């Protein structure tokens, strides 16, 4: 269990993803008590945009043991406006480009649950 993070994943999985927004409009991911960009402590859960765009991606050929059966797989950083997310892209490596639109979802089970991206 990881309070804050688990609730975040539950919300993304059910299509109600959010991020933490400070009074200055910065985005960040839970759990957090202060905005990492400006130190503001007034954070509110704000709906995550439905689509993001891939900022950068890599095809991981040498994985950690948890992903031994998945390699090669694509991991990307995607821009959802005020916040970015890191996740695996559920697509073949040669079908992914920087600038592609994706939506966020959740893959894996229990301890291995994490953000995944589905191409739009």
């Amino acid at each position, binding site marked *: 269990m990881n309070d804050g993070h688990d609730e975040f994943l539950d919300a993304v999985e059910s299509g109600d993803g959010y991020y933490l927004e400070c009074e200055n409009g910065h985005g960040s991911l839970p759990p957090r008590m202060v905005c990492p960009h400006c130190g503001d402590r007034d954070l509110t859960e704000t709906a995550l945009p439905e689509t993001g765009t891939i900022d950068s991606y890599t095809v991981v050929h*040498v994985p950690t043991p948890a992903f031994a059966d998945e390699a090669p797989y694509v991991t990307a950083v995607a821009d959802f406006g005020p916040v970015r997310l890191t996740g695996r892209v559920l697509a073949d490596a040669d079908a992914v480009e920087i600038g592609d639109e994706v939506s966020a979802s959740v893959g894996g089970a229990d301890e291995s649950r994490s953000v995944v991206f589905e191409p739009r």
Partner: protein
Amino acid sequence: MTDPRVAGVGLTHFGSHPARTSRDLFAEAGLAALDDAGVDPADVEGVFYGNFMGEIAEHQGHQGPLMAEAIGVDAPATRYESACASSGAALRQAVQNVRNGEADVLVVGGAERMTNLDTAETTEALAIAADDLYEVRAGLTFPGAYALMAAAYFDEHGGSREDLAEIAVKNHANAVGNEHAQFQREITVEDALDAPMVANPLGLYDACPITDGASAAVLVSESYAAEHDLDAGVAVTGTGQGGDKMALHDREALARTPAASDAADEAFADAGISTGDVDVAEVHDCFTIAEVLALEGMGFFDEGEGISAAADGVTTRDGDLPVNLSGGLKAKGHPVGATGVSQLAELTSILRGDHHNSEHVSDARVGVAHNAGGTVASATVHVLEVQE
């Protein structure tokens, strides 16, 4: 305030020593440094020691006192952990302690034991330098994180795998003749391009190897060096440290390392130098793209210009700014916790004129070491100068 003198340095061979404990490795490096310095271990007032994955690699925490004991020093000892910048951080603390007059003689160093784990285990251990919840669980490995930075760099500025290969070729060439280096052999651009992919666009030859090894140095105050008539002509004249968001996705840009910029700005101002004064640099090339980001971050090149520095011959050993004459992490090896002080050891040797590549920089007087932790959420920069 007194700028600490580097009285002595010591390194083990960097490479595969799976049966050697880190205490054994550090004893070799530490005793070599004490012997090089000609300093009595009884005079040492503290040990500042860097290590990253001791708990995972050999079920050993609390390594500070263990390492002091290993070199026959009875003094307070503390382990510093800042991922791959662990001994850079330890060095900074040691420099500050000599400067503020708290100590006249300190041992600083680091060690890492890595090859006793298999590749998957080591990949997992290194990955914990990233954000566990949001990066590691999303399948991001340490090479994968640098691959994201490389892909973002290519997208923003251009550049190619060939440009990165030239950096690997340069650093391998520099390691030939370095008795401490893991790989003392040249490679070609074709070797690098033909190697298996680790995380696109980074292949096996874009990545530093998995390495066991240790490094150490003896720092002394000017007054101690004078009193004991030590041959210690190189001083640490500048120190700086920078920090950044832990996860790549929380940073303003993926292809910049502001922590290195902050560390360099601080260290250069501290030493009263500018980039133009620097004769030689050791930078943290855990991946080829990291050397590019380091050189741009420290202000040696404009953004987008660092990628071609090796190919253009600017950073080769006969260029205007020789970088990683040791072979760098790429060819010398990267025993994580030992790396920062190994850079200090190599630079000291270069500035003293007893380095295997000294002939290429025979008039060098100012050296800079850049040590980065994780995807540069931590960075230290140190300036070394030959004293009159």
